[in-house]
């Protein structure tokens, strides 16, 4: 990051810079997708217009909503375990912010370049389970309790297919480093033809499918939204939350959707890279040119929007599973499929 403008920053300067950028990287895409998909696309799907009054085509609606939430009364139920109740949304949000740290947006544009980046990402993604359990238990509401327990069971069950889906990519790339995975896709070749690189959705399409299904479950979105199932549990673990704390959950939910889409883009769609023959036409240095620190985020954003489109499309189309059907689906279908995928990937890796 510090090399972008060829200026050396002091550690504290770059820390503040990164902190601000982390907020930008989490909140701006979250707001964008909420407006584009949750407000508008879904409205068109459901033959209605969505917000139209606040700003042109309702584009300022989100600000209005945030303002509304921020000024709502701050309610903590009498029987709630106050400290845990208050802390829970922050724990959920922390997991979102930790996730974005390892996502590469360009050759140098990333927050932390861990050697075991994807491992870290999958680890911190389960921190949100703790927050959700905290919220479910501390609310002192039966709906919240059932929702929290459902969420815990579901999130733990779907952690496994998520990890196993990524293993295929890791085997193929030969590294756990996120930047390394992107590089492997950019430098890869399809039967000796390197013009397109080798984005892993060509070879790991089963992995991509499992990853997206597991992400849908991790985010507790339809068809896996039993933890918040409105028609059964009112709003699940979020039932007792209102105002700003609900907003935190809301941001957590939609920002995490984007970050997972970023991860999927990095793992399966070639990350911040564009087809190498275009990059070579643009710059002599190809993907190593410094300009990719600016092009990269835009490319990532585009790929993220593609994936979140699928996420929201599924979310507003399918009815939800029942709890036992969800577990059956994870343990009897997704996990065996992921294991087969890993085995086949391993064999092919040795063969080629």
């Amino acid at each position: 990051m510090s090399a972008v403008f060829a200026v050396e920053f002091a550690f504290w300067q770059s820390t503040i810079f990164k902190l601000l950028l982390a907020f930008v990287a989490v909140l701006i895409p979250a707001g964008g997708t909420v407006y584009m998909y949750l407000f508008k696309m879904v409205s068109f799907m459901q033959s209605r217009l969505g917000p139209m009054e606040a700003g042109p085509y309702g584009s300022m609606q989100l600000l209005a909503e945030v303002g509304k939430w921020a000024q709502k009364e701050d309610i903590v139920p009498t029987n709630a375990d106050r400290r845990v109740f208050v802390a829970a949304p922050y724990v959920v949000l922390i997991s979102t912010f930790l996730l974005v740290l390892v996502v590469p947006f360009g050759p140098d544009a990333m927050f932390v370049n861990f050697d075991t980046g994807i491992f870290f990402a999958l680890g911190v993604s389960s921190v949100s389970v703790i927050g959700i359990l905290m919220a479910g238990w501390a609310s002192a509401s039966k709906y919240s309790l059932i929702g929290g327990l459902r969420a815990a069971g579901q999130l733990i069950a779907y952690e496994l297919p998520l990890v196993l889906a990524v293993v295929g990519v890791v085997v193929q790339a030969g590294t756990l480093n996120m930047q390394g995975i992107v590089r492997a896709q950019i430098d890869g070749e399809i039967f000796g033809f390197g013009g397109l690189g080798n984005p892993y959705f060509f070879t790991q399409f089963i992995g991509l499918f499992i990853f997206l299904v597991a992400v849908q479950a991790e985010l507790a979105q339809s068809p896996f939204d039993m933890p918040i199932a409105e028609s059964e549990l009112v709003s699940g673990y979020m039932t007792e939350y209102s105002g700003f704390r609900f907003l935190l959950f809301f941001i957590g939910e939609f920002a995490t959707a984007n970050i997972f889409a970023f991860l999927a883009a990095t793992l399966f769609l070639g990350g911040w890279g564009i087809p190498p023959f275009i990059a070579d036409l643009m710059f002599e240095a190809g993907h190593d040119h410094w300009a990719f620190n600016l092009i990269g985020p835009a490319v990532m954003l585009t790929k993220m929007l593609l994936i979140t489109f699928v996420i929201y499309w599924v979310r507003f189309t399918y009815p939800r599973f029942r709890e036992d059907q969800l577990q059956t689906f994870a343990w009897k279908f997704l996990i065996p499929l992921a294991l087969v995928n890993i085995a086949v990937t391993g064999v092919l890796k040795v063969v080629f």
Partner: protein
Amino acid sequence: MTAVNDRRQMAYIAAQAADARVNLELEAEGMTLNIGPQHPATHGTLRLVVQLDGEQVIHADPVMGYMHRGYEKLTEVRTYPQVTTLINRIDWLGSFANEVPFILAAEQLMGIEAPPRAQWIRTILFELARIANVTLFLGDMGVQLGAVSPVFYAFRDREYILNQIESATGGRFHPNFDRIGGIKDDLPAGWIAETKSALKEIRDFCDEMEDLIVGNEIYEARTRGIGIIPADVGLSYGLTGANIRASGVDWDVRRDNPVGLAYDQVDWKVWTHPDGDSFARYWVRLQETRESCHIVEQLLDGLPAGPIMTKVPRIIKVPEGEAYIETENPLGVMGYYIVSQGGLEPFRVKIRSASFSNISITPWLLKGTYVPDVITILASLYFILGDIDR
């Protein structure tokens, strides 16, 4: 200072009491969950007290009466023509269907009969009310199971029918159109062609729902084998309408006892399903909506000419006597038992509404099911709160 201390002490006592309550509940077997009176799944104020063991229902107890408006009593201080305004609000999604059995019972007591054209228009509006009602169910079932979009399509396409009801009667939701001895007005010009195109939209909607909901694997997994009502149990609980036809009982008042309505003049079929589960109830209602379109189209084609009102006195006095008329309403069999002692008002009216009987099976049906299935079963039984509580 003392006030602060007092408040602290109060808070402490309250916290202790809350802890004790929680502990008591944790120690007791299972947990009592209050679904309702205000809950997103009950679209109204039905309260369901459910004893849970984990997520399994040990015992479910529907508590009714949160919306009781005392219609049976109120009818006793209304004149006969005034009653229809009131009873429009019983099943508010298919309002016109509520008026018909009452009017028919009053006509029977007075010994008059509406002219054929009025009967046919009554039947048409009756079926349109059924379509408007059941259309919403067809979309709402999706929303209860977590698919948000279908209910918006239902609201969109129901509007075609409501527009037709409005242009014929003047009331979109509460027509108040049926009169003793006939109907209020004749159909407006061009109404028949418009209605036919509206019915086409409803047929498209049914196809869409068949694709979107019936054809969905998750939907099928959620509803097949859930909430099975055997025919004998259903009959002993007084289930009627599509709920009992989905259990394989071939019984439809429209066909078996069409008093004062033109159902015997057209060619149609009663749909049944042998399974008796939630899927069957949805499927039967879907087929019935198509069948209703079929009925209305035939009625529109064969609409007889003639007067729409028979000769009735200016001030309606119903002679002494008793009459019970039931019709096949959107939610099931609805009947009015009218006792008249002569005079302007009925002496006593007993309203047999379908949802009240349909919901009474829930304690039997919900035993041993899981919380998500509770919602599926309630949604598939399809009740309307106004119809339960009256």
